Each structure stands twice: as structure tokens, then as C-alpha cells.
């Protein structure tokens, strides 16, 4: 029977004579089908979204620790005026490493890691779309991070700041290979982010549990969808910009050379067209965490779900119209600035509405003050300050004073730590039992929360004052007598407190993972599907794909969980549903574990690193990359087995 004939048969007539399985027997078979190959090779080959997501989060936390250590070094250097703890050149490398690592190697990847881990569980599916792409995403991210940090160890770290303005990063002033390493690191991380975003988008659109229409998706999934689309639309811009920078530096193009009618501002436009959305790529998943935590710990659904979703979408769209507010001091036509001022201020409307909905949910519900909710409360108290200083610097006359000062440093740490890291820590505490099967210590959790919350205010609030007192950002020293001694000393003390709190959080993580209280499958009595899986989830996530008919399936389920039956057990079969209403549509096999994504990353790494030195590396290096990709996509041998089905 050839393909054409087979396809003409009505689908229901396909021969099925496998055993109908259920209960423990079914789980046994599924566990075999969905397990990784044994040993280290199997570990490298894993395409399980839970493995990938966990690796992403742990790696990102390691980079957080490294970049945090650099922050402490910087704070020590700045703790008193005219300090000579570290020299100017080293300081510049350190703040570049700190910013670059935090933005590209911590904030974006950690959010994506959480999304990769949680999304399929929340959607009630067994794997994400394109699992090998997802594995490739992680390896590429790791390669980019290693490139940057190995360069730092070898004393050729970039020293151009995390936004690398040419001409300082260009061929004449960016001496050596430092700027190239920065630009290639950006290429790695942006390929990783794009690969992850493609996988997440397809997962969300096609793999939702039957009945989970768009209007019933958990808000975190909405945030993930918006974020992934933002990655898809914004990252190409920085890819192009850093590609042009590399070609300026390597083959002497003139994109950023004013003497040959290039323009240094071209970089700033391209970079911030990516760079501003990037802030929301970090922040929106955090608001997703907040919505989930608030709903669970208030024990009621989020008030005005449609408004929260619209706010996410609106923020995602507005984010692309703001980039010029990073360039108010560049002397562009003044009249155009008003538009960007208005747009930048307008962003506070959707954010303000989200905050309203959270507070209203707490007000309507019965809040339980456990650690995840404490982080949310800390988030609101802190983030709102950052949001309001953001409104200030959207105004051109204010920005011209405050731009590039410590006021800005304070602002974006309030937004990024208060707005993203606090919810992240809450989210880690919240989903920790899901990933490990054990609960984190509540007592240690509370201590570290209060330390980080108060330490943060101590470290970053005085920076507002330092900025107003005339301290530009990115200075390795400052003279005495300018009113900068006290704010800087307080900041330094606060930063040490924050570091201690983060350390305590990590201690709590490790101790609880080993010996924490064993968690039931739904320890917080949460409403969303990930809590229908066991803690930690089985490799196949769900023995039966659940059917959903509300936004809070676990609260509304009653005694029994509605599920579908009829998926293969000897094959990694997924249920695809329609994009809007999520009615069951197709069954499709998901990719098996494979070493090729890892090999593909190795080939890519060789190509990228060598292309720092010679343009020909792109030509010759693409061949092994192509070989790896084709091996990766080559279908597995045709499977003549009959179709055993579940249930």
C-alpha cells in the first residue's frame, strides 16, 4: 500500500490491535517510551522539556551568581571615593561582564527556562513542540555563556558596556578581540532565545489540552506566548546589528563609520529596537508568575482575566514603539521625542491595570502569607517605585538630566530585580515541589525574603540620590566632596546583604532538594494543570491527556478528571488541537532523544569562534553545521509496528 492509497482510507479504519492499557501497566509502558537513553550520552541527548528547562534555570542561576560576585567587587570599589581596589580597565571589564551576563545569560534565559519547564505541564501535554530545537537552544546558550566567561578568565573580556556603542566597540577603538567576543556571545544567546521562542509558540498554539481555548489559558502561558512573539520580532534586530559590528571589525565595512557615511546612531536604533522589548521579555514572564501565585494564594481566580491578558498583549505591542527614549540625548529632532514620551508613559497604563487586578484578587480572596506571596508583595512595593521612576525618565526634560546617571542604574534595578527577580524567586519557591517533589523550607525562605527585600532597598534606593548628585553610571571612581560618599557606602552595604540573602536562598534550595518535606501532588491547592501531574512529573507528564472546561481545571474538576484516550504508548505521540478552541485535531509523533542538537551546537561554536578571526570560517564552518542539522532532521526508520492505544 503506498502513501496515496493509505491516505485515501478513512482514518478510523487504520488497523489498531494493540492492548488497551490503563493504570500502572500504562505508566510502565509510557515510562519506557519517554525515557532518555542510558548513561552520559543519554544525558546529552535528552530532549525532555523538563530536563532542558531545569538545565536552563540552573545554568542561569550559576551565571547570576557569577555576575552577582562581580557586582560585589564593583560595590567594594565604589564604597569609598578615589578607591584603588581595582583599576579602570578591569572595572570596565567587570561592569560589562556584569551587565552582559545579567541581561543575556541570566534574565532572558532563566525566564525562558521556567517557560520551557512549565508550559507543557500547564497545557496538559507530554512534550513541547520541536524538542530537539529546544535542546539545541540550551546547548547554544551554554556555549555563548562559556565563550564570554572563558574570555574573562583569559583576560580578553569585553570592556565596552552591555550595549556596546560604536565607535567605542568598533574596529579603531575596540582594540583586540574583546568586542568580537561580546558580539558573538550575543549571536549565541539570541539563536538560543529564538529557538526556544519558536518551540514555545508552537507548543502553546497547537498542543493545549482539549477544551483549553485561548480564553482558558493560564495567564503565565499568555505571558509566555506574548514574550515568545516578542523574541521572534525583536531578536533579529540585534542579530543584524551585531553582525554589522562584526563585519565592520573583521572585513572593514562602514556601517558605523561616519567618515564613510555610515552612522554610529544606526547601532543605537537597531540595538534599542531589540533592547527595549528585551526588558519586557524579562518582565512579562515575571508578571505571569505573579498572576499564578496571586490566584493560588488568594484562592480565587484572577479578577478581570481579560484585562490582564489585554494588558500583556498591549505591553508587548507598545514595547516596540519606545526604543528612542534611550536616545533622547543624541540630538534627534525634538518634535519626534514627544511621541516616544507619550508612548513610554502609555506603557504604565497596562501595567497599572495588571497591578490593580492583582490587588483586587488579593482583596477578593483570602490571602495566605506564604513565601511565594511574600515575594509578590515585595515585588509590588518595589516594582512600582521602578515603574514610577520610569515615568519620570520618559519625560525628555527629566531624562536629559537623569539619563546615564546612577538614577538610571537605580531605576532599572528596581524594575529588573524588583520586577523580575523577586517574582522569579517566588516562582522558584512555588514550583520547587513540582520539580523536585519536596517543599522548600518556609522558615529559611522567610528569612531570605526579608533580607533580600530590605537589603535591596538599602543597596539601590541611595543610587537615586547618587545620580541626582551628579554621579554618571559606569565610572570606576568618583571624587570626594560631591555628596556621593554616603549613598555609595549604603549601596555597598546593601549589596552585601542582598548577596547574603541570595546565598541563603541557594542554601535553602540545596537543603530542601535533599531533605525537604515531601510534597503532595498539589501542595498549594493550585488550580492549573501542572499540579495534576505527580511531583516531580513523570517523563511523560500525564498518563492521560486531561480535558479542560474552565480556567481553573483543578478547582472545578470535582472527583474525577476528564481525559482523552487513544494515544499510542509505544511511540512518543502527542495530541494536537486547533489553535483557537483547542478541539482535538491530530496525533503527531514527538522527536526521540538525539545527540545531534549537541553536535550541532559544537559545530556552530567552532564556526562562530573561528569567524571572529576569519570571514572564511563562515564558509567552511557551515558545512559541519549543515551535516549536523540534516542528521538531526533525518526521520527515524519507518516503524511497521501496529498501533497499540491507551486506555
Amino acid at each position, binding site marked *: 500500500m503506498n502513501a496515496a492509497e493509505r491516505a485515501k482510507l478513512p482514518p478510523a479504519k487504520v488497523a489498531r490491535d494493540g492492548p488497551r492499557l490503563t493504570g500502572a501497566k500504562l505508566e510502565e509502558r509510557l515510562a519506557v517510551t519517554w525515557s532518555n537513553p542510558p548513561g*552520559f550520552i543519554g*544525558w*546529552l541527548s535528552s530532549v525532555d522539556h523538563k530536563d532542558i528547562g531545569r538545565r536552563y534555570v540552573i545554568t542561569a542561576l550559576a551565571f547570576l551568581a557569577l555576575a552577582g560576585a562581580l557586582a560585589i567587587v564593583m560595590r567594594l570599589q565604589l564604597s569609598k571615593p578615589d578607591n584603588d581596589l581595582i583599576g579602570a*580597565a578591569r572595572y570596565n571589564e567587570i561592569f560589562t561582564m556584569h551587565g552582559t551576563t545579567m541581561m543575556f545569560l541570566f534574565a532572558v534565559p532563566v525566564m525562558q527556562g521556567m517557560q520551557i519547564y512549565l508550559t507543557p505541564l500547564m497545557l496538559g501535554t507530554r512534550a513541547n513542540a520541536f524538542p530537539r530545537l529546544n535542546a539545541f537552544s540550551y546547548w547554544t546558550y551554554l*556555549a555563548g555563556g*562559556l*565563550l564570554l566567561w*572563558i*574570555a574573562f578568565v*583569559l*583576560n*580578553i573580556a569585553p570592556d565596552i558596556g552591555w550595549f556596546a556603542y560604536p*565607535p567605542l566597540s*568598533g*574596529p*579603531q*577603538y575596540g*582594540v*583586540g*578581540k*574583546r568586542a568580537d567576543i561580546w558580539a558573538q556571545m550575543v549571536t549565541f544567546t539570541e539563536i538560543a532565545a529564538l529557538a526556544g521562542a519558536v518551540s514555545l509558540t508552537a507548543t502553546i498554539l497547537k498542543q493545549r489540552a482539549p477544551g483549553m481555548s485561548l480564553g482558558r489559558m493560564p495567564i503565565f502561558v499568555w505571558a509566555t506566548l506574548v514574550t515568545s512573539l516578542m523574541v521572534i520580532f525583536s531578536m533579529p534586530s540585534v542579530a543584524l546589528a551585531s553582525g554589522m559590528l562584526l563585519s*565592520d*571589525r*573583521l*572585513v*572593514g565595512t*562602514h556601517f558605523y*563609520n*561616519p*567618515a*564613510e557615511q555610515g552612522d554610529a546612531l544606526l547601532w543605537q536604533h537597531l540595538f534599542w529596537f531589540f533592547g527595549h522589548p528585551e526588558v519586557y521579555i524579562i518582565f512579562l514572564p515575571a508578571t505571569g508568575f505573579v498572576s499564578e501565585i496571586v490566584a493560588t494564594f488568594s484562592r480565587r481566580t484572577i479578577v478581570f482575566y481579560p484585562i490582564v491578558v489585554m494588558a500583556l498583549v498591549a505591553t508587548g505591542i507598545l514595547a516596540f514603539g519606545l526604543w528612542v527614549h534611550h536616545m533622547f540625548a543624541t540630538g534627534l529632532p525634538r518634535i519626534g521625542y514627544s511621541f516616544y514620551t507619550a508612548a513610554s508613559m502609555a506603557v504604565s497604563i497596562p501595567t497599572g491595570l495588571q497591578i490593580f487586578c492583582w490587588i483586587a484578587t488579593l482583596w477578593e480572596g483570602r490571602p495566605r502569607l506564604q513565601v511565594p506571596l511574600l515575594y509578590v508583595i515585595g515585588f509590588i512595593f518595589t516594582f512600582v517605585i521602578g515603574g514610577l521612576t520610569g515615568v519620570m525618565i520618559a519625560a525628555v526634560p527629566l531624562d536629559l538630566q537623569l539619563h546615564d546617571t546612577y538614577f538610571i542604574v537605580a531605576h532599572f534595578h528596581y524594575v529588573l530585580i524588583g520586577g523580575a527577580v523577586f517574582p522569579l524567586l517566588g516562582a522558584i519557591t512555588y514550583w520547587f515541589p513540582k520539580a523536585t517533589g519536596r517543599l522548600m523550607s518556609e522558615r529559611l525562605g522567610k528569612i531570605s525574603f526579608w533580607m533580600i527585600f530590605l537589603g535591596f532597598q538599602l543597596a539601590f534606593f541611595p543610587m537615586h540620590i547618587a545620580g541626582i548628585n551628579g554621579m554618571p553610571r559606569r565610572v570606576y571612581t568618583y571624587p570626594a566632596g560631591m555628596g556621593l560618599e554616603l549613598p555609595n557606602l549604603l549601596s555597598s552595604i546593601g549589596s552585601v546583604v542582598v548577596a547574603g540573602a541570595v546565598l541563603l536562598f541557594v542554601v535553602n534550595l540545596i537543603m530542601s532538594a535533599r531533605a525537604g518535606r515531601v510534597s503532595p501532588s498539589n501542595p498549594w491547592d493550585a488550580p492549573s494543570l501542572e499540579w495534576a501531574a505527580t511531583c516531580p512529573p513523570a517523563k511523560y507528564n500525564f498518563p492521560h491527556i486531561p480535558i479542560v472546561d474552565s480556567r481553573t481545571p483543578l478547582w472545578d474538576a470535582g472527583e474525577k478528571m476528564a481525559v482523552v484516550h487513544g494515544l499510542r504508548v509505544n511511540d512518543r505521540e502527542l495530541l494536537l488541537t486547533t489553535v483557537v478552541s483547542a478541539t482535538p485535531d491530530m496525533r503527531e509523533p514527538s522527536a526521540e532523544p538525539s545527540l545531534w542538537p*549537541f553536535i550541532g551546537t559544537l559545530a556552530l*561554536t*567552532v564556526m562562530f*569562534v*573561528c569567524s571572529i*578571526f*576569519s570571514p572564511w570560517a563562515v564558509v567552511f564552518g557551515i558545512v559541519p553545521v549543515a551535516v549536523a542539522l540534516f542528521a538531526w532532521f533525518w526521520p527515524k526508520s519507518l516503524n511497521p509496528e501496529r498501533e497499540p492505544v491507551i486506555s
Partner: protein
Amino acid sequence: MSLRFRSSIAALALVLVLVGCDREQRQTRGKPLAETIPASASPDTVFPGDANLPKADPRAAAYEGNAAAISEGQRLYNWMNCSGCHFHGGGGMGVALMDDKWRYGGRIDQIVATIVEGRPNGMPSFRGRLTGQQVWQLAAYVRTLSGQERKDAVSARADEVSNTPPQTQTKREPLNPADSAEQ
């Protein structure tokens, strides 16, 4: 984890060590080498095409292929208005620096001597006008114009009007026979 980690470290370290990380070392004060003018390289010991070359100067190693030194040299090349006569290596009133013809030798210490002493037919002496370190930096840059320096230490172009191909692509011109014999 550990194997993958170790192998990437090894691979990257290999690449980076091969290119030499000290190639980017900034020496702001010209230490520890004494920055004086090479005594052996006075005009009467250097003749066109002379095979009687003095031994290579040990200081050369600190400047040849050093990205920071070459970059400083590039800046000085403009500051000292070398391009006024030599243009961007193509030559004009002064001799071309992009080609393989080195009347007074193309080794870095020979170029240092040329800059310090000056040469007949218009090349002024910079003795006492530049510090020793600056002269060496300048000489290191001049060598890149004919592709003598490693490509990973030079910059593709400066932020100026350029009518030469990018320096990272400059073909390495052979030095004249007398010099190649020495090497």
C-alpha cells in the same frame, strides 16, 4: 556535564591560547623594558640591501602582534600626520608603506631606527619628539600596512575615509631579500 564542560574549555582555551591572550595586554607605561632608542641602529649601520644586519632587538616581541600597541600606533600615525606624506600606506610625497620594498629594512627595529633617525629625501627625525614606547608602537603599526603583523591583532579599518582594503585582509608582502635572509 563535566566532560562536555571540560572539552569545551579545552577547545576554547586551545583556540584562545593559540592566538595569545597577552596579545591584548595594554602596557600603559612602557615597563618593564627600558624605552630607549636602539643604539645599534644608527644610520651608518643600515644600508640599502645590506646583509650585515644587527641582531633583532629583544623589545620587538613586546610590540609585534600586540593589539594594544598597534592600535596606539595607528592613532599616532594620524596624530603625527604620517598620512600627510605616506597617505594610508599607499605613498605620495613619502614612500609607499604597503609594498614589499623596504629601503632601510622592514624589521620592526629597523623601522624604529628610521622613525628615530629620519632618512634622506624628506623623512624627518622624531628623536626626542616621541617617547621610545611611542616609536615602537608606531613601527608596529607601520608593519601592519604591508601585512607583516598577525591579522588577529590589527583592526580592519580606522574610523576615517579609507581607500585601502581592510587591513585584516592585507596580503603579507615578503620583506626584501636582505631581511628575509635574516629571518
